[in-house]
């Protein structure tokens, strides 16, 4: 094992979080930086140019995803089940490489609702102290929307987001989302051109009186030059976003924005194929990070400041492997690392099949549609409903690649043979779906820890996920399906309709979402959080842990925008406070 020359700042995982912070430190400090990334460094050209339209290679075989042969995670629904390794790609698809999972994301970009950052306080004030289920561990974030708003805005401008504001400095704007928190500025780009299916949804939902607004997007609708001088190309609506890199650099991601900017500092070294496995520390200060290099040799990289900004699963696992913070114990309800593990709740959807309308489902982009928030979070009165929470309702045309999206086919369609073939021919291009992306509360029994049995390719324990839905979410799904989706699909008037309104147990097999959150949550109380509002470890003061792993619970939205705001907020605290005077930030 070699101990390498010390650097000032060391990034563990180099995706959006690392890219944002490295770019800010590169512009505003003279610090030297090293980034450890377990995967390769891909760029639009040559990696995706003329190559990304390949459903089999990228979407099914998962060219851009975490290599499960080397490291996966184990899963069980509850503590009575033996945990088993997830051996194949299923419910979620972590990335692998510089830029992280954002390289293959859809680009649906949200800010969590303003009161969501003080969710427990909000719900207890509105419904009383006994309203919430006893086993939920949802909590306030220790930071407010108002504190984060400038950083959401910085993210918007750097990533060239497209949309229509619904609340500008407290003034409700027509055409936008009236439920959103106040924005200090309009989106830097206007909404994308939207495909036919979502347009049918918009017309029907507006007929029913809903306030429909464009899906906020990181698929650049036009040529856009960001404040750092990086240029996003106009989106071609080719229909290959999620699971693919972008062939023209129109999808905002770290490799099209902050990482090339950070590289310009000339003080950043990105080390590919570096698998970090331990943060070395004395209980108060971190000294270095140990990793296996591309040839499998163990290396130790010392640094003054360490930014753990990997995917949620890796953030939690590295804290546990490094023995930083008290591991969560669900029996005693004590400890913090691994606590408040959450996901995303889908399961409510409505699908319609037309006899005649050609929808051109293959034309689209990852964020190409319309949304409504009347049923999200606490937009509606829950006093007599027997559950809390809700979800964003949306219709997006993300591109229907035929291996995975030849359907859905109408109920009763044959699964093979001439009947199947006739149904696919008739309905592939005549089907539209509306779905709910539901929030996911935290519960005492849902958590992450180290697996006692299964190990990665280097012999270190895998992370173990213990997770299931509860009756609260089952009621939420049924309610939104019955009160909203059923009416909307009827108004869209397809020849055949189907509404899905039931979820049972969380299933790790079908893909649902890569929105995995919690485990190193932020907060004001070290007894119930791993990091403070600046994402600084309560235990090791020169370690910052940033990601969706900071979320105490997950909202009814994609998490990326909120993670981005946290990364900019942390950057600001590092530049203006910590680097000048290292120590506990307050």
């Amino acid at each position: 094992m070699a101990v390498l020359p010390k650097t000032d700042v060391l990034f563990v995982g180099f995706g959006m979080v690392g890219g944002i912070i490295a770019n800010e430190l590169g512009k505003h400090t003279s610090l030297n930086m090293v980034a450890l990334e377990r995967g390769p460094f891909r760029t639009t050209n040559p990696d995706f140019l003329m190559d990304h339209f390949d459903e089999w290679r990228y979407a099914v075989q998962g060219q851009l995803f975490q290599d499960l042969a080397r490291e996966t995670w184990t899963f069980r629904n509850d503590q009575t089940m033996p945990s088993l390794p997830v051996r194949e790609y299923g419910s979620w698809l972590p990335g692998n490489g510089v830029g992280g999972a954002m390289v293959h994301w859809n680009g649906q970009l949200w800010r969590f609702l303003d009161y969501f950052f003080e969710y427990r306080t909000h719900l207890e004030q509105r419904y009383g102290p006994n309203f919430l289920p006893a086993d939920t561990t949802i909590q306030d974030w220790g930071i407010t929307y108002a504190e984060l708003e400038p950083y959401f805005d910085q993210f918007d401008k750097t990533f060239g987001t497209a949309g229509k504001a619904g609340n500008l400095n407290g003034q409700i704007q027509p055409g936008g989302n009236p439920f959103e928190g106040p924005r200090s500025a309009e989106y830097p780009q206007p909404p994308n051109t939207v495909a036919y299916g979502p347009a049918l949804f918009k017309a029907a939902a507006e007929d029913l009186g809903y306030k429909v607004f464009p899906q906020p997007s990181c698929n650049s609708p036009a040529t856009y030059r960001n404040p750092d001088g990086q240029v996003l190309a106009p989106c071609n609506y080719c229909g290959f976003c999620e699971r693919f890199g972008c062939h023209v650099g129109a999808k905002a991601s770290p490799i099209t924005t902050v990482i090339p900017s950070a590289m310009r500092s000339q003080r950043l070294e990105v080390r590919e194929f570096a698998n970090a496995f331990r943060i070395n520390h004395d209980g108060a200060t971190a000294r270095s990070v140990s990793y296996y290099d591309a040839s499998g040799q163990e290396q130790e990289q010392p640094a003054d400041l360490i930014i753990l900004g990997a995917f949620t699963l890796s953030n939690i696992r590295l804290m546990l492997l490094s023995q930083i913070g008290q591991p969560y114990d669900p029996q005693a309800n004590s400890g913090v690392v691994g606590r408040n593990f959450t996901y995303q709740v889908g399961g409510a959807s409505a699908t319609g099949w037309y006899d005649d309308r050609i929808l051109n489902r293959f034309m689209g982009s990852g964020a190409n549609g319309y949304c409504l928030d009347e049923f999200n979070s606490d937009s509606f009165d829950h006093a007599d409903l027997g559950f809390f929470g809700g979800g964003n309702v949306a219709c997006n045309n993300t591109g229907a690649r035929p291996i995975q999206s030849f359907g859905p086919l109408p109920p009763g369609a044959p699964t093979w043979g001439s009947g199947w073939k006739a149904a696919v021919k008739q309905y592939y291009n005549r089907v539209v779906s509306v779905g709910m992306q539901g929030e996911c509360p935290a519960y005492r029994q849902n958590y992450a820890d180290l697996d006692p049995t299964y190990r990665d390719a280097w012999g270190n324990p895998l992370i173990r996920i213990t997770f299931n839905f509860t009756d609260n979410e089952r009621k939420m799904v049924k309610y939104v399906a019955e009160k909203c989706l059923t009416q909307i699909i009827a108004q869209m008037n397809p020849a055949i309709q189907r509404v899905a309104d039931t979820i049972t147990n969380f299933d790790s097999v079908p893909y649902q979402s890569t929105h995995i959150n919690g485990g190193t949550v932020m907060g004001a109380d070290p007894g119930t959080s791993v990091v403070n509002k600046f994402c600084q470890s309560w235990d090791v003061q020169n370690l910052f842990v940033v990601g969706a792993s900071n979320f105490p619970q997950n909202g009814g939205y994609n998490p990326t925008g909120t993670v981005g705001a946290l990364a900019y907020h942390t950057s600001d605290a590092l530049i203006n406070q910590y680097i000048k005077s290292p120590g506990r930030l307050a």
Partner: protein
Amino acid sequence: MAESPQHTTDEELEARLAARRLSRRRFIVGGATSSAAVAGVLGSAALAAPGGVDEHLTQAQAQAQAQPQAQPAPSTTPGFEYFTPFQAAIVSAACARIIPTDDTGPGATEAGVVYFIDRQISGAYGLPGRRYEQGPYARGASTQGDQSGLHMRDRYRLGILGMETYAQQLYQLGFAQLTTDQQDRILHDMESGIPTTFDGASIQSATTGPAIGGTEGGMRQPAPGGTDIGATAFFNLLRSHAIAGFFADPVHGGNRDMVGWKLIGFPGAQMSYTGVIAQYGQPWQGGYKSLGEYQGQYLPS
């Protein structure tokens, strides 16, 4: 659905293996080219079976004589990298029933689906690839996904044996020699989990094929999960790979002439829909394009 596998007694196991040994001899018959070698391993049952050695050799000779020596095979003629001819015949026949050639147009045969499957499983996808392959192996709940220790190649090997043995049980013929109605009956039985000629303890599948079902694209509804074993698992695997080979870009060996895309109107690898995405309800007029058309431009001429 996942159910606890029934324990197999030693006697049952031995009977199953014996049946398999018998049917395996019949496979040798199908692939043999030397009548002397064939005669050495033949049982009378195989000789008596329609489609047995005599008929097969006659066909092969007829083909050889009909093939002019001077005419080389077209350069596009594909062969098999992994499948034996016996395996390829069964996979090809099954895929032709899953996606038949009918009045809606070309099916799996014209698309060359068997070549697609062969190419995939001859490469890393047939071996562990990016699959987590560390033990201990255990049968889990359906929500925990595929826990099999078998590589894709061996799933095909065992699945094909199971199909052939079941065909022999029902019809005293190999699967590839059956009528299409008989083949459909076998595939329906497999889908329903009826045959016991599959090694249920070894073939377990939830997502071994591509995650198909068409539930994506703006919809986040989990498909009905389920870890199944034996005949149903192999049917699901075949079905998912037939569909993948029908709809994957032709660069992967199937979907020849983009017949899968043309059936449903998916234009393939198009650079841009910028001008037309907002022309609601208008059919796409720009034709079909494979990735190969772009890739070729980058080769030195």
